[in-house]
Structures are given as C-alpha cells and as structure tokens.
C-alpha cells in the first residue's frame, strides 16, 4: 500500500503544482510587469479576430496602446482607462466576457462543471475506497505484502489517504479562488507609487522624441523617422525638422532632408545645424553646392562639435 500512497501523493503534488502554475500564468500576463501592457492584453483588438490590443499590429491597436500609455501616465488608474475604452467600444472589447446575460453563462458553466466534477470524483473515489477497505473476515489471513499491518491499521491509513485527497481538493479550490480574488489587486500593484514626472506626462511630444532618439541609437532609422514625423505633426519645430532630416539622410532620402533643412533656413538663414543638414543632404546629388553649404556652416559655427569632421570632409572633397 505504501508505494501506491506515495504515488498518489506525487500525483497530487504534480496536480497542485500544475494548477498553481496555470493559475499564476493566467493571472499574470505572460511575465509582464507593465500595467499598460497588462491592460492592453485584457482588451480585444477591434479590427482583428482573436488578437489582443497588446499583440495586434493593426494601427488602431497601436493607437489604443498609445491612449492607454498616455492615460496611465496622466495618472488615471487602469480601471479608469478600461472604463474609458469600454465607453468608446462597448463591453465587447473586453477579453473577459461580462458577467451578465449570456456572458454570465460563460462564467457559470465552467465553475459548475468544475464543482460537479470535483464532487462526483470525490464521491466515486470514496465509494471504491470504502468498498475495498471493508474489513476482511477474521478467518482470512492478512496479505503477505502488507507485512505487520492489521485491518484497523489499514482502515486508518485509508482514511488518512482519503484525507490527503480531500485536503488536496480543498487546496486546489482555495488556490483558484484565492488567486481569482487577488488577481485584480495584483494588477494595481506595479503602478508607480510616486506621481509621474509632470514634465514627461504633460508633453507627449517629448516622450515621442525620446523614443525616436532611442530608435535612432538602435539603428532603426525608419521607425525613428516615423516618430519624428509624428512629433513634427504635433509640433512644427525646427529642432524636430533637423532631427528628422538627419535620420532621412541616414536612410538615403536626402532630397526630403534637404527640403526640411531649407524650411528651417527660410526662417533662420544662418542656423548652423540647418546648414550642416543641407550640406550633408546635398552631398549625394550636388557635391559642389554641398561643399559651399558646408563652408558656410564652418564660417558660422567654427566651434560646432561636428566642425572638425566637416572641415576634413570639405578639404578632402
């Protein structure tokens, strides 16, 4: 009997661990601590089938992620952001079905099935166990394998084993219940305790520029250019124009870069950075003009960080 009980304990342990792992993984979104991502993962992408806002590559999902990030940064709670999006798209965008009408049925059926299943499994288990452990007639010798065990011992052990199963079942139920209760609160935990930096949260353009600069640093010039464009659309600023121009030069679109630099020069004819960008943009198409522009740049800003490099370039070409 002992090996069998040990096997049962192992099975129970494996089941418990599996349940714990499963519940943990479904409560936490794929190992992500970012509340914005977790919120997005709980929303269905309105433009696609079976994809969450977090996973979808559709532009509207990207817009929704941006709205989520902005609102969280502005100090709204995840529940408030969710309410906002539900007010825009209806409850259908929630990945979890609503607990009313037919949605309630979706919640109740698995719960009932689990409850009834557990109940009947326990019942069936009990019945066979009782049947098997009905005391053997006194005339029959005890089985050799059970060694010194007497019938009373076996009954006691059987009850103990039954206790393990029951305790296990209760533990699984308690675990599922506990995590289900705790899950909504867990979501709120990773929110930053400190108020978000007012400068950063008040200005999405600054965030966008920081992101673009990061993308540039990683060599993702296309993405950086797109972000600079978006930032420029929100704030027509010379500095952003020149950053975009520099990114465009690096992706080989010097004509567009030259136009941007010219826009800046139209307002500020001697802006050294604009002269620098224009000169660099002209290098591929018109080397002579490029050299002239770069010389103008050197005249205006001999102490510019790029001056030494440009001087070399001009002297070489």
């Amino acid at each position, binding site marked *: 009997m002992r090996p069998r009980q040990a096997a049962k304990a192992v099975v129970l342990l494996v089941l418990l661990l599996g349940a714990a792992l499963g519940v943990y993984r479904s409560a936490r979104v794929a190992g992500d601590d970012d509340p914005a991502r977790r919120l997005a993962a709980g929303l269905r992408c309105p433009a696609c089938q079976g994809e969450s806002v977090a996973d979808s590559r559709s532009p509207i999902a990207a817009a929704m992620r941006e709205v989520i990030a902005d609102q969280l940064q502005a100090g709204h709670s995840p529940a408030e952001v969710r309410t906002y999006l539900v007010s825009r798209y209806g409850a259908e965008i929630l990945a979890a079905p609503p607990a009313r009408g037919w949605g309630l049925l979706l919640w109740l059926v698995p719960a009932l099935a689990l409850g009834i299943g557990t*109940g009947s499994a*326990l019942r069936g288990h009990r019945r066979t166990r009782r*049947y098997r452990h009905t005391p053997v007639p006194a005339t029959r010798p005890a089985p050799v394998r059970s060694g010194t065990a007497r019938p009373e011992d076996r009954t006691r052990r059987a009850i103990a084993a039954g206790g393990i199963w029951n305790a296990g079942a209760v533990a699984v139920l308690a675990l599922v*219940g*506990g995590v*289900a*209760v705790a899950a909504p609160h867990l979501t709120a935990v990773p929110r930053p305790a400190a108020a978000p930096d007012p400068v950063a949260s008040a200005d999405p353009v600054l965030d966008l520029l920081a992101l673009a600069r990061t993308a540039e640093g990683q060599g993702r010039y296309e993405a950086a250019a797109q972000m600079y464009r978006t930032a420029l659309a929100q704030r027509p600023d010379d500095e952003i124009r020149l950053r975009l121009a520099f990114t465009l030069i690096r992706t080989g679109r010097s004509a567009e870069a030259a136009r941007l630099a010219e826009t800046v020069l139209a307002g500020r004819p001697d802006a050294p950075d604009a002269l620098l960008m224009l000169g660099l943009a002209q290098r591929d198409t018109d080397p002579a003009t490029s050299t002239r522009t770069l010389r103008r740049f050197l005249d205006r800003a001999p102490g510019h960080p790029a001056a030494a490099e440009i001087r070399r370039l001009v002297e070489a070409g």
Partner: protein
Amino acid sequence: MSHPLRRRPTAGWRPRFRWVPTLALLGIGTLGVTMAVGVTGTVVRSGPPASALGAPAPALTGRSLTGTPVDLADLRGRVVLVNLFASWCGPCRAELPLLVAAQRRWAARDLRVLGLAVRDGETAVRALLAETGATDLTVVPDPTGATAVSWGAAGVPETFLVDDQGRIADRATGPVTAEWLDRRLTRLLGAP
C-alpha cells in the same frame, strides 16, 4: 456500520461522507463568488458605446492641414460626414473621390466633410489629397490615433454621419459606396 455497505453503498456512505457534496457545493460557491469579484473588477461600465447610433458625436477638434481651427461642435445645425482615413490605407484612397463628390453634390444643403487623418504624416496626407483630387476636404491630423479611438473606430476607413443635432445618424466600417452616401444623405438632407 460498514457491513451493509456492500449491498447499499449510499446507506453507509452517508453518515461519514455526507460533507463531500457539501464540499463540492462549497467549491462551486467559492468559484462563483471569486469569479464575480474578478468580473466586477473587470467590467466597470458597459452601456452603449459613445459612438453608437443616436448618441451625441464625440468631440473632434484640432487644426486642419491648412491651419484653420476645426471644431465639430461649431458645425451644429449642419450635416457632417466624418471620414477616418490614412494615406497608408488602400481603400481610403479609392473612397476619397466619392466623399469629395458628395460634398460638391450637397454643397447647397450645407454638407460638410471632415477628414481625420489617422496615424499619418502630414506630407503623406497632402500627397494623398493631391493625388485623389481631394484638396478641398477639411482634414484634421490625428497623428497618435487618439481621436479615432475616442470615436470607437475599428480602423480605417470608417465613416460617421453626424446629423444637424450633432448626433451620430449612421456609421460605415470599411469603405463607403456611392449608393451608401446617396441613400443616407438624401434621407437627411433631401435630394441634392
């Protein structure tokens, strides 16, 4: 106590294990309650979405590509077609000439067409408008798509028909056809 069990298991089963069904019921109860708690945490509010038919149209404000301030609320009293589009969207390209034609056709009835350029660069939008002959459209850039989200848009193209009371009279997800425009606009504005 245990002997009659062989023939009638339920009889002996009862006294000692009657708590098993209770446990199962308790389990169902626990799950029900915990899920209800989990769900109330999830569903905060679910009425009709903001852009449902008959609902007041969400806000649409901004500066158009030509630099003029635009506010949908100022257009109360006029029928407005709000079209969400982008230069990176093929069907939008095909749809823009229809919207321009509708604006011209119902010009005498004061129809306005407002374009919302969703997640797009201004240069690309200008190029698209020039290419499709839609340069007279009033276009408000929505670079992040936040306005599109506030309208509950599923994507582009999407068209909302806002009546003279500022309510959403109709909505088309995906490209509109000339027939769609004709039928809806005739109903609201009369024949052109």
